[in-house]
C-alpha cells in the first residue's frame, strides 16, 4: 500500500465534505482507479466522473496514469474560470 493526497474541488469537495483526503491505495493504482473508488463511496458523484480531468502533482494526467507513493492527485471537474 502507498499514500496519496487527494485534492477535491467544487462539487467533489461539497459532496465529500472535505477538500483534501489522505488515502492508502494499492501499489500500481491509477488516477481513474482512485476516482472509481471515491464514486463507489459517494454514488452522488457518478454523474460527474466522466467529465472529470486529473492532475498529478499539479500537472494534467490521463485516467490511466499510475500513481506513486506521496503524490498529489486532484480531481478537476470542468473548469469555468473568469
Amino acid at each position, binding site marked *: 500500500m502507498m499514500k496519496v493526497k487527494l*485534492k477535491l474541488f*467544487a462539487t467533489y469537495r461539497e459532496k465529500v465534505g472535505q477538500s483534501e483526503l489522505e488515502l492508502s491505495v494499492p501499489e500500481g493504482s491509477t488516477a481513474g482507479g482512485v476516482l472509481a473508488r471515491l464514486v463507489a463511496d459517494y454514488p452522488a458523484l457518478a454523474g460527474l466522473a466522466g467529465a472529470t480531468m486529473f492532475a498529478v502533482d499539479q500537472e494534467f494526467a490521463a485516467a490511466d496514469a499510475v500513481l506513486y507513493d506521496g503524490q498529489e492527485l*486532484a480531481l478537476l*471537474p*470542468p*473548469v469555468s*474560470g473568469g
Partner: protein
Amino acid sequence: MFEITDKPIAAADLEDLVITNADGAVVTFAGVVRGHSKGKKVLYLEYEAYKEMAEKKMAEIGEEIKARWPIDRIAIRHRVGYLEIGETAVAIAVSAPHRQEAFEACQYAIDRLKRFVPVWKKEVWEDGEVWVGREGG
C-alpha cells in the same frame, strides 16, 4: 505577475505592472461577474481554485505568449471567494510594441485560462445554486 488572490482585483492594477518605456500598446481584459445568467437573477458567486496548479498554469500561459509574440510583460490575476455582481473575477494585462500583438495575446490568455486553469465558480440564485462547467463565455 500570475496570482490567485482572495482580495478584490482590478485590471488597472495589472496595467501598472506591465507597462514599460519600450511598449506602445497595453490591452487589458476584465471578466466581471454578471447579474443574470440564462435569465435567472444571480445573487452572488463563489470562486474556488486549485491555487498552486492555477498559478503554475497561468505562468505557463505567460510563457506561451512570450514564445509566440514579441511580448515580455504580461500579468494575470484571478480572484477566489465570494464575489458580488459587478466585481472583477479575472484580470489580464499585456503590453507589447504594437497593438495587434497586444490584442491577440490578451485574447489568447483569457481563452487559455478559461479552458485550462483550474478555477471553478458557483452561481447562487434566490432558489438554488450550481457549479458552472465549461461554457462559451
